[in-house]
């Protein structure tokens, strides 16, 4: 209880952090992404990954997929805070439903020669990455998969000659016949 004298009550919280993937259906109106991002920065929540695109043109609806970390109480707050935003239709915690598929796409540029090129091609095959650009001294691989698969592929490319990576962030969808 030896907190510094302060007008606020300060206490440390020791709940462990969890990672959750949230799917958010929003009305695609100007500023909606700014609202969502502003919510996260304004309230000090983490964004590990965020993807957004219009998914239903006729109804002006977009789907935002957010990967975030926090204590269980914070994760619950994030969902409620998202849900109370006026243009948000629905928030689904894909991690809690436990039946979701999560995929990312990455493009990975690697530079090298000789054995390095052969090793890169061999690993690409193992990871089912496609070559989408090649020169005498470089490749660009396209790879899709879960975040950890891509992380792993990228880290294997480092000693071979990784130049740069561009990732889309996570998109998620539930299994089975039902939609959100």
């Amino acid at each position, binding site marked *: 209880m030896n907190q*510094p004298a302060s007008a606020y009550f300060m206490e440390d919280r020791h709940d462990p952090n969890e990672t959750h993937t949230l799917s958010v259906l929003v009305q695609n109106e100007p500023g909606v992404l*700014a609202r969502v991002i502003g919510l996260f920065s304004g309230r000090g929540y983490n964004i590990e990954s965020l993807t957004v695109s219009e998914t239903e043109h006729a109804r002006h609806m977009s789907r935002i997929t957010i990967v975030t970390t926090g204590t269980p109480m914070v994760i619950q707050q994030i969902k409620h805070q998202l849900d109370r935003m006026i*243009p948000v239709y629905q928030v689904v915690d894909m991690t809690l439903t436990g039946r979701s598929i999560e995929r990312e796409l990455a493009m990975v540029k690697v530079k090298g020669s000789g054995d390095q090129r052969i090793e890169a091609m061999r690993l690409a095959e193992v990871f089912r990455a496609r070559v989408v650009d090649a020169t005498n001294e470089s490749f660009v691989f396209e790879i899709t998969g879960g975040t950890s698969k891509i992380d792993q592929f990228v880290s294997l490319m480092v000693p071979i000659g990784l130049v740069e990576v561009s990732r889309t962030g996570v998109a998620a969808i539930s299994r089975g016949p039902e939609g959100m």
Partner: protein
Amino acid sequence: MSESNNHDPNQMTGAAMIVRALKDHGVEHIFGYPGGAVLPIYDEIFQQDDVEHILVRHEQGAGHAAEGYARSTGKPGVVLVTSGPGATNMVTPLTDALMDSIPLVCITGQVPTHLIGNDAFQECDTVGITRPCTKHNWLVRDVNDLARVLHEAFYVATSGRPGPVVVDVPKDVQFATGTYHPPQKTDVHVSYMPRVKGDPEQIRKAVALLTTAKRPVIYSGGGVVNSGPDASRLLRELVAETGFPITSTLMGLGAYPASGRNWLGMLGMHGTYEANMAMHDCDVMLCVGARFDDRITGRTDAFSPGSKKIHIDIDPSSINKNIRVDVPIIGDVANVLGDLLAAFKASGKQPKIDPWWFEIGRWRARNSLAYRRNDDVIMPQHAIQRLFELTRGRDTYITTEVGQHQMWAAQFFGFEEPHRWMTSGGLGTMGYGLPAALGVQVAHRDSLVIDIAGDASVQMTMQEMSTAVQYDLPIKIFILNNQYMGMVRQWQQLLHGNRLSHSYSEALPDFVKLADAFGCVGFRVSKPGDLDGAIEDMIKVRKPVLFDCNVAALENCFPMIPSGKAHNEMLLPAEANDDATAKAFAGGKALV
């Protein structure tokens, strides 16, 4: 008003639509300040008499006036300001209204659409700046969207958990002609549907807890006031039916009458001992429209450790935000209390809580609001008590600024009805009370409206006295003048080794002369014996008043829960000698 088209009365300019929408939503008063980007709207206002415009002296004043208007009537407050500085001056009242759940509709002018983004004259990114301090906001780029957006704006501001909204209207849209439609059911935002009715299963669980409680307490808040008159009526009925003790937050005062038998007084940092002890020791807590603010909970890990908690709130994000509750009920207070009360009555059970009342009686006997009487100087608490006694039975509304005087007002002024108490709780905005009083008086011309003020706060929006004079609004500014930013000084005394850094009110104006300069009436009192007479005279004056009440300069506000302490570790006035205080506040260097 628009002559542009004789065939279709719904063809009109954007500016005309705005005034028309105000009428269609029953708006009788708006608070505003003109400027280049809203002149077309001002032109429309000029040509009609249904909506009265109150011209303030600073846009912040318009915002707080609209808040006072809204809180005292239950209707949304409406503000009209220009682009750029007009909009940025609204940021404080918008934030204030967001924190305290006050419905405001703020219309801002914007530079013409084709200039947006060009750093045009008096351009600012109004929707960007106000996004985090509104419930929602819109930039209207097409005059044919304007009617729908305005109707949506009123809907969003007033439904669910109320809050402020901004509609930013570029000047070319104000000039353009389009089609207006009156408000219709479909003008609700497609993705916004607040839940009003409580889940019957949760209500059943709540009743099961309430009927078996041995040490229950009702903790009510601003949500009861937001919900409207039925909510207060049902809350009173629930208290009468159950016999439970009830406390309230700063924001909920008046929902249950201060003269009621079961009233424990306000809870929280400066709440009464009995209220905080009841919260700490209860076995069942029924939270009605309150949000477990940090001024209430103190240390969250020591907050009411042995209780089952029921929480009624319309905003799911208020639930489990700070404190984990056992039975959340999402819905509107009036609606849920109606169901809860019916279920409680139907159970036919009457909890026996006499021993609990006996314990509460012992806490009450500690008399935690006691203060030293003094025959030579006016004690601030005494001044509030006299103000209360001498206005009893009158049709009175109280607003406050922020500081010690605000807490004393909450502790010593008894509120019998909701909507009678206007204070900045969440944001704690000094300068709120004077313009808020103005707004209250606009809505209640014949009532007695008093701003209980501090000498520092009142200087923040003092210019609005001129508005009061212009519109013949006889607000009474009752300044507890202690020549300090008392609340800041109190913290410095308690937490910062009595180093009174910049908390002395140097070079105070002569408030009586200032009143004179504004064309209102000034009073100054420094002797306890003169106080009653002066208050009576003040009440009689049908003009705005600045009342300079010189009070004991160094009095501090108790009881108080020291930081990092639990509710049962309150510091009571009788014990607040130097030693005890030093001990209670022992700690390292302050961070905040």
